[in-house]
């Protein structure tokens, strides 16, 4: 019983903390740019505002456009229920989860991309085309990177991967880990739509990808789309932590251990958010047709990582 409660708590934690992570990234970026910047709580205020605002919908929008925010949000919650956060147990746990996680991301992207086309706006369809294309290049690399990490663990079950990572000796000495980590970092940046791939802070520029697709949303539905994007970001960060820095994740349900791992996870998420902000600050957005190069670099890294795994 206590397990289930903790597992539900994990889900609520990620959903609740995801705007804060976004706030930390934004605040860090602002400070690095020499600005005051909004408070880290700003995303919560935004969310509250969106959920209370009346909507403006396009006259061309069909039912697909109307249901998409709900589909996307619910899909994200289903993914969260499969991710170990501060205990290795999750609400849903089974073999082949890795693939389900990636394909659920795919499902939310599928609907978002269709919604982008639905209103007839060129920005939406352009963003949709670009997002599907980038994901088509990123998905194989994501899988291979996940495999590079999953192969030594001999499973595709996230709970087992994480618990084996926690109990196993420190992976920090193996080149497999470093290479896979680098590749994974590139993918986290891709999947969360950050510079140098996409710019989450831009609107109405011809470079936008994710923001282009949700351009026609407003009010409650926009709020849900934004929140889903933040949850996805929190999931990607958590996956990175689970695979590469699993220290402190609690294997057993024990009071003090839990509090320790809770604080640990929170700190690690903050650090990741700050690191991502640094990465965003240090690069300019690259040309769209250069993205394949960046991703093929990640591909090469992950393949070499797997090779070292076999050879060493």
């Amino acid at each position: 019983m206590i397990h289930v409660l903790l597992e539900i708590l994990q889900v609520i934690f990620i959903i609740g903390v995801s705007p804060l992570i976004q706030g930390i990234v934004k605040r860090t970026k602002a400070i690095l740019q020499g600005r005051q910047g909004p408070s880290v709580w700003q995303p919560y205020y935004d969310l509250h505002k969106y959920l209370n605002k009346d909507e403006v919908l396009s006259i061309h929008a069909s039912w697909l456009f109307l249901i998409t925010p709900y589909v996307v949000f619910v899909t994200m919650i289903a993914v969260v229920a499969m991710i170990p956060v501060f205990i290795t147990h999750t609400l849903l746990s089974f073999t082949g989860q890795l693939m389900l996680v990636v394909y659920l991301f795919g499902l939310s992207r599928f609907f978002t991309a269709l919604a982008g086309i639905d209103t007839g706006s060129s920005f939406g369809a352009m963003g949709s085309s670009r997002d599907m294309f980038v994901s088509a290049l990123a998905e194989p690399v994501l899988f291979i990177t996940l495999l590079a990490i999953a192969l030594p663990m001999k499973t595709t079950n996230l709970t087992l991967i994480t618990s084996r990572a926690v109990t196993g000796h420190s992976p920090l000495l193996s080149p497999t880990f470093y290479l896979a980590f680098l590749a994974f970092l590139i993918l986290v940046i891709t999947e969360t739509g950050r510079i140098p791939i996409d710019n989450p802070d831009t609107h109405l520029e011809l470079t936008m990808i994710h923001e282009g697709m949700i351009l026609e949303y407003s009010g409650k539905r926009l709020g849900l789309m934004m929140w889903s994007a933040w949850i996805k970001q929190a999931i990607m960060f958590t996956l990175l932590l689970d695979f590469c820095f699993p220290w402190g994740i609690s294997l057993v349900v024990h009071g003090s251990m839990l509090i320790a791992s809770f604080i640990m996870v929170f700190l690690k998420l903050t650090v990741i958010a700050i690191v991502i902000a640094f990465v965003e600050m240090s690069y300019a957005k690259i040309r769209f047709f250069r993205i394949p190069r960046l991703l093929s670099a990640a591909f090469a890294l992950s393949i070499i990582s797997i090779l070292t795994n076999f050879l060493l």
Partner: protein
Amino acid sequence: MSVSIALNIAVVLVIINISLGLLIVVTRRLTYLGHAIGVVTSLGLVMSAVKAMFEPPQYVIFVDSAFAFTSLSFRMNALTGFFLLLIGIVGLFASVYGIDYVKEYAGRKDVSLLVAGALVFLATMASVVLAGNVFTFLVSWECMSIVSFLLVIYEHEQEEVRNAGFIYVVMTHIGTVFLTISFLIIARYSDSLSFNLMNTNHMPNVIKTIVFLFALIGLGTKAGLVPFHIWLPRAHPVAPSHVSALMSGVMIKIAMYGFLLIVFEFLKGGPIWWGILVSCIGAITALLGVLHALVQRDQKRMLAYSSIENMGLIFLGLGLSLIFMSLHDPILAAFSLLASLVHAFNHALFKSLLFFGAGAVLSKTHTKNMDRLGGIIRKMPWTACFTLMGALSISAMPPFNGFIGEWMLFQSAFALAMSVHSPWMGIYAVLLVGSLTMTGALVAMAFVRSFGSTFLALPRSEYVESANEVGMLMRIGMAGLAGLCLFIGIFPARWVSMLGNSIREITGMSLKMNPFQFGMNDIARADGRLLLIPVLMTSILALIFLWGILRLVGRRTSAVRMETWACGGTLTPLMTYTASGYSKPVRVTFQQIFRPSRTLQRTEGSEYFPSKFVYFSKVTSFAETYLYHPIIQTVLSMARLVRAIQNGQVQSYLAYLFVTLIVLLILVK
């Protein structure tokens, strides 16, 4: 009802179909009887197939003739049951759909021929699967090819259709030659034509390799594997849509059955390079297929390329199974084979559904060009909904059935990466995983593109204006398939374990247990299962949670409808994104493959103030440019050399005869 009765019924149904088809062709009447019999016989096939799948012992009937070589023989076992089920289910919905769809041709074509053709086509496919000896198999195979050729050229007034038909009939016969040779070699070594007596134990390895390669070429041609696929994207789109559905959904799976028969049942696998070759061809086929699908403007042509891609995935699974067989890992071999079968069945369902959807749009708008469509979701809401379900299934989105097959294929490739010790095999397995997932993501893009440009946004031409929802029977045909896609996606376990019997026919490996729960070696001994239902339950809970949050945090909001924002201008249909524009990033990034070319011609106005343009853009087909073109050029240039001695004068031909005679006399002496 025992299996023997099931077999007898199936054979009788085949005979009924063929004779009624011929009767319709002769009388040019009775189309309604044809429709009814199509539905009834398909149902009968489904029932006898299910019987055969549940009661595995196989049964054979012979129809003897004066010559042993030409005797007919039929057999039924769990594997043939599986393929018969596939034919029956798709046939059933295609027959229902066809009743309304053929009305499209009424007045301008002879509908009775189409009805008869579809009936006979179904029957010949069933009889290939039911065949119990080489003669029956090859005769049915040839009949199937010819009937499908006739259906492809149904609208033969059009130049394009005739060309497509020609290429189809040539390619399919090249395939048949290779297939016949490999069958005859096996029959020669086992001294029997009957499938149950085939015995390749004494066959030398070289001969086995030849049989394998010939089977791969012969069946690969029918299955549309790269580089033998060039007929498929031509022939499938020009056929009437319910026939396209049968061809793409079922006929190319018959090639898979042939491959299972020869390589798995008769040859019982081979050295490891067979598996590597097959899976490699599969992966390349999948990637090239989906890349070409992404740049098509013709909706049905795009679906045809997507069929090539799916056959690639299926053969990737078969190749993995062959690799596991040669590594002596029967459980994983059976699992990958199961993955292939599951994916084959799923593909039959959703591809037929998508062809039905495309056909529905085509029948109302009279165009297949996606760039000219748009906004149909408001005119044809049901068709849009079912097509969306098909698109979600084919893109392997949970909780639809496509995901189940791809999940199993993925797990097979992952298992290979985990069970081998050689780093190169490991990397190969990982690359297979990579190509699987890249294919998956590109398929999603292709179907977002096709659904988006057909059904969403604004109508881009007057073709769409007059569109309205299709008839009830067409909707029933689509709804049935869409429902099955969703049902299998949500409840896969029972269905997949039902296929366990079919696997046993080939591998001898009994997968009685639920494949979602059996431990795949060390990968997951205790918890090897996929649980979609809890995920769905979680999603429903999440929806309730979301409703709660919205109630708690937000107030009840209202919505106003306004025009889409278009940078201050008015939104016109010409401003919406077209299918061609959507796939531009793919064309640019993979230009090594496509060699895209475009030309812009000014037709009116001065050089500086042009008022009208003509714009052409074109991509090349990889295999045609780099493989078929050189071959054709070589043949033609050789023909030109031979032309030198063909001068048309009787004297010189007499001289050739004389010289030949003398040469022969010298040689024979």
